[in-house]
């Protein structure tokens, strides 16, 4: 049976400016993706057939070019693992870049260093946890990322991408909470999401120090008319669409079978 697909194409094709992928990320972040399934890819010339997807659905093949998140809580943990891999890879690139090297403010340097530590810890922990509950073919592989659109010598560029990743992480964990069946995993997600929120506030305060930007109206939403005072809760498919649109992720993610409630 042919699966319905939504193809989210990469905007990173080498012809675009450095920050174009970021703008597209922001733009697509609000995109409502419809349909019963979602096929994401980050490099449009790497076509993949329905037959290949179905084969992967059946076998859960470990493959660096394409990965099926799976179903149930496992799918959500894989999803979290992918987001943490992205963040960890980004900060690893940051601390090897010239902006980080040139930071003279000790607190600013500490924040970037800590974020790198924390995201590496989240990533490696989730990998260990996944290995304790699932066979290797069902666990997301070590993903490949392409950060060529980011200028790691530019403070503005690094902090802007960092802010997007942290805010996205918060909204992603908030949106995933209700999809989890296990109270233990829900608590774990809670332990991580508040740290991501602490990160988001710290990065935002580096961008606009001492202002309301740490929890700004630009990122929060209203609930039931009580005011703009709540973080977003975004569904996995929308988060993955936004991630795919950055062009950072070189592996295709199949999210056909994620829980929706």
């Amino acid at each position: 049976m042919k699966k319905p697909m939504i193809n989210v194409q990469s905007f990173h094709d080498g012809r675009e400016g450095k920050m174009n992928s970021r703008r597209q990320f922001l733009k697509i972040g609000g995109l409502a993706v419809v349909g019963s399934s979602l096929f994401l890819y980050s490099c449009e010339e790497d076509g993949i057939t329905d037959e290949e997807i179905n084969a992967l659905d059946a076998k859960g093949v470990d493959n660096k070019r394409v990965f099926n998140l799976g179903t149930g809580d496992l799918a959500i943990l894989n999803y979290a693992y992918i987001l943490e891999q992205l963040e960890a890879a980004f900060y690893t690139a940051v601390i090897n870049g010239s902006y980080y090297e040139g930071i003279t403010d000790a607190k600013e340097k500490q924040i970037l260093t800590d974020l790198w530590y924390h995201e590496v810890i989240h990533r490696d922990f989730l990998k260990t946890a996944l290995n304790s509950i699932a066979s290797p073919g069902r666990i997301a592989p070590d993903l490949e990322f392409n950060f060529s659109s980011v200028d790691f010598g530019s403070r503005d560029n690094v902090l802007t991408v960092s802010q997007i990743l942290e805010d996205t992480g918060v909204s992603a964990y908030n949106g995933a909470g209700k999809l989890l069946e296990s109270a233990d995993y829900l608590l774990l997600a809670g332990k991580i999401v508040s740290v991501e929120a602490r990160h988001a506030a710290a990065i935002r305060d580096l961008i606009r120090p001492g202002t309301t930007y740490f929890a700004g109206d630009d990122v929060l939403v209203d609930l039931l008319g009580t005011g703009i005072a709540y973080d977003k809760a975004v569904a996995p498919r929308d988060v993955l669409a936004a991630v795919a649109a950055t062009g950072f992720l070189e592996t295709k993610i199949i999210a056909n079978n994620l829980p929706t409630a």
Partner: protein
Amino acid sequence: MNIIKFLENLSDNQLLETKGSRRDSLNQITNAGKNFAQASIPFALAATSKKTSAATMSMSSAMFQASPTDVLNFALTLEYLEREFYQIGMDTAGLIDADDRDVFGLILRHENSHVDLLLLALGDDAIDKPTFDFTGAPGGLALNPFGDYPTFLALSQGFEDTGVRAYKGQAGALIDNDVLLEYALQIHSVEARHASQVRRMRDEKGWITFEENTLPAAFSGIYEGEDNTIQLGINLAGKFPSFGGDAAVTEAFDEPLTMAEVNAIAGVFIV
């Protein structure tokens, strides 16, 4: 039953179809005698949900979980406390540094919204606002938060960090109600943004290292257990020597507090 009214505004009609239908299954995991409260809460899932059995089986603490109404009233108590604290702070001339008024004005606005949302959700079941004494006299303290800005900042940090741990500790109790769980999570992370900001205004890191407490010693309970290195049964101690070591491990995960632990902290300020 006001919660029904506001949920009617939501587009998801499924929410209403199973109103009250989970009462029997929930009674197995909540304290007896709370039936009146459960009956007023609509549940978003079918009675045969996997989530109920998962919650029942996976956590030994499930038998101590509060009802959703109790959880929301517990949260409301904390939000009342924060709102009043910041309102008095903002209304006290000369207390808050001019450069910091925007930040605390925003936090106050958020706490106001959180109170309103919880009142809307609870309807007639909402508790009245307690009487607060921010000197801490009910707990035997003699603080002066509205006459001494460093004390105001310290209490602010304490309330925000406590709020983060309090919401986190109750998420499991809301696992069967997708709507309320998501609202709680959306508040939870905003409290974490507040905590991060106020901590850095006090020249601390935005995240919690081990059990480090820079507040008055009476508040060490706010950070107790934050030095945990075991997640999902996996001990991360000693595993990240090149990535900040155990200090970073404890920073990377915020820990929950139980309702009783939070009540003990908040009780210091409740007459």
